[in-house]
């Protein structure tokens, strides 16, 4: 994936945002912005052009799933890639996220390798879809 892509990191815990940001920077993705829940993320998405959203699920205000649904139902944002990074690990929830159109699903606690793999997979698929 192009290392210059703009990534929005969404999590209500500042420590988790920092950890994700550090891992992304280590992987070479330095163009990141943070939001502390779905609502602030939604506002950021309206005003900026992002290529990827890395979001938690369980957040006050607007959950990551609602954010995903909003993104998919907005014609300007519907093609945006969304990677869910969440502690929610119930089978039904994973299926729900898949149905809502998530591009990748990482269960917390996660490793740098898992994050890297999922990002690569999203990149491969977007190349495949463009080809």
């Amino acid at each position, binding site marked *: 994936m192009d290392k210059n892509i703009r990534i929005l990191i969404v999590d209500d*815990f500042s*420590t988790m945002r*920092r950890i994700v940001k550090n891992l992304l920077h280590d992987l070479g993705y330095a163009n990141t912005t943070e939001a502390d829940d779905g609502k602030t993320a939604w506002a950021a998405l309206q005003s900026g052009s992002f290529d990827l959203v890395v979001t938690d699920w369980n957040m006050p205000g607007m959950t990551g799933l609602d954010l995903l649904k909003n993104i998919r139902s907005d014609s300007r944002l519907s093609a945006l890639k969304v990677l869910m990074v969440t502690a*929610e*690990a119930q089978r039904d929830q994973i299926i729900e996220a*898949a149905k809502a159109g998530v591009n990748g699903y990482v*269960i917390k606690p996660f490793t740098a390798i898992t994050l890297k793999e999922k990002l690569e997979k999203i990149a491969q698929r977007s190349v495949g879809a463009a080809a």
Partner: protein
Amino acid sequence: MNAAEPGAECDSGLYAGVARLTRTLHENLRELGLDGRLTRFAGNDIPDACVRLDYVVKMTEDAAHRTLDLVDDGRAIADGLADVAAHLEKLRRLPLASPQELQRARQAVTDAEARLRGTLTALAQAQEYQDLSGQMIRRVITLVRNVESALLELLDAGAVQSARELPINETQAGLAGPGMPGAGGAADQGDADRLLASLGF
């Protein structure tokens, strides 16, 4: 109500029955010392536990930020060492490296070593939250167990006679939250990947 009406006797019997049950319950509660215990739980222990748990959240968050700050310091030290290595490589290519330059490079490595050791010590110290938060969480676990046994005694005292036979439904309020390793229903990353693959992901 007219005392001569049919059912009046039945009503007064019912009231007397309810009054008797209430009295018995109160007596049981008093005998068991439950009324005092429940009042203490509700009025003191549970609010205190909430304050402690809030503090645990804050303490762990602060410790995580402190750790991440120190990791950033470690990265800066690593960057500094990379600069020294690049400088040494430049010196190596020179026909005659100046002893002062080599001495400066050696000093830079020694300084980085001292800073790295300091950072590692601070990293270890930043983990002390585990002891304190562990102690607080243990206290709350003890409280939860005490409330549980008081509630069971309350059920045994006949306050809510049929409740124990009722199936206890899992609350469906909100999301499941973090799962425990191997606990029912929760997937790990491998399960999630297989599930998504089966859905065409």
